[in-house]
């Protein structure tokens, strides 16, 4: 026997496919309370696999104006400041010297006090743009966000980059790329496998150890 729920689900599907942007809650309100959960499951299941509706321009403008979409676009388009600029600006706003910040960082991260100079050195290099901020450890970013009174999101955004250079397509595009670069690759492999002569410690891990 066909139930109202079947019919309402079917009407939802038709509205969805036609790009009419049906409100799930309006459809749920049309069935008795005990049936809403089941209908919601069916609707969610359908839209999970349904083709993207054919939205017209008016519908797309409507979507763009939805508060949640507008907020997401706004947050996304607010391009993060570069890491050196952000670090310098926040540090100066809080009237902290690089050494002050290093001392606090050592404390917050529970590092040995003798790591302070090395931490300061890393911070200064970061401010000069000499470090790849995408290799900063999440723990370090969290601690800096706290000390610099900024959001983790902003710091993480600044530490990331928009679409890094992609080597693979360029490599594949060259007819004899493998032959030309083989020698270099072998050298790089040897270098990567060679033990470091530096004393790598937890501060290096934090600033250069990656995610």
């Amino acid at each position, binding site marked *: *026997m*066909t139930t109202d*729920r*079947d*019919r309402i*689900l*079917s*009407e939802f*599907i*038709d509205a*969805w*496919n*036609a790009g009419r*942007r049906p409100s*799930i*809650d309006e459809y749920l309100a049309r069935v008795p309370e005990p049936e809403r*959960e089941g209908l*919601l*499951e*069916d*609707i*969610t*299941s*359908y*839209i*999970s*696999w*349904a*083709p*993207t*509706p*054919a*939205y017209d321009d008016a519908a*797309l403008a409507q*979507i*763009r104006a*939805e*508060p*949640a*979409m507008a*907020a*997401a*676009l706004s*947050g*996304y388009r607010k391009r993060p400041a570069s890491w050196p600029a952000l670090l310098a600006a926040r540090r100066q706003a809080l009237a902290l010297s690089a050494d002050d910040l290093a001392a606090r960082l050592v404390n917050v991260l529970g590092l040995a006090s003798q790591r302070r100079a090395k931490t300061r050195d890393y911070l200064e290099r970061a401010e000069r743009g000499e470090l790849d901020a995408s290799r900063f450890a999440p723990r370090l970013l969290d601690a800096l966000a706290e000390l610099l009174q900024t959001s983790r999101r902003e710091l993480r955004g600044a530490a*990331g*980059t*928009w*679409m890094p*250079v*992609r080597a693979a*397509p360029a490599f594949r595009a060259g007819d004899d790329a493998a032959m030309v670069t083989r020698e270099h690759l072998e050298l790089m492999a040897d270098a990567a496998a060679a033990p470091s002569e530096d004393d790598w410690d937890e501060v290096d891990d934090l600033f250069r150890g990656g995610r």
Partner: protein
Amino acid sequence: MADDDFFIRRFARARDTGDDEAARQIWEDACLRKFDLVKGLARGHRFPGGQWLPVPDAEDAVTEAMERILKMGENFRGTTGAEFRAAIKRAVWFACMDTGRDVLAHEKHIGGSLDERYDDSAEAGPHDAAVERYLRERADVAADARSDDMQSQRAEELVRWAIAQITNEGYRAVLELTYIDRLSGDEIAARLGVDPNNVYKRRERGLKKLEEILRDHRS
């Protein structure tokens, strides 16, 4: 009709040729068309303990998810609409879970941990493994015969493949006309020569079968 594959294929071309601004614009356009899906998935999100994400919090989860999805373009390496959809589902799932942690973590009546994965699996959602397995199988079959035309069919093929597993011919016919041909209930009734009520019933039951097949396939 511009489907997911259309956008993702163009996005991938722009990305791989280093045209970052074009890639970003195409990605935004593709994401815009997924807003209703994101909203719907957030509205229907269930925590591993079985509770629904409260309606007032769903809006926050949608904003969070959309922002993550927009940012995902920075690192998205896929080339198909199916991969795009799988990534969206994962992003919504995590955004809902994070919203749940923020809002509900202290409420005693939430059973189970919000950190548990759906159905005790390590996956983000019930269908992701099916998508990934399907894509692997497709990649094997199509490795030597890849073309733009074939790629544009992938998302649709995934649904076709799942619908084809349904043994009940009546359900299968209605689902094909719904998902693939995108006919309305009345048009399907006319095409099949059945009462619209019969179409409603077959749609609802067929949908459940489809769900079962996709769930079973991941094991």
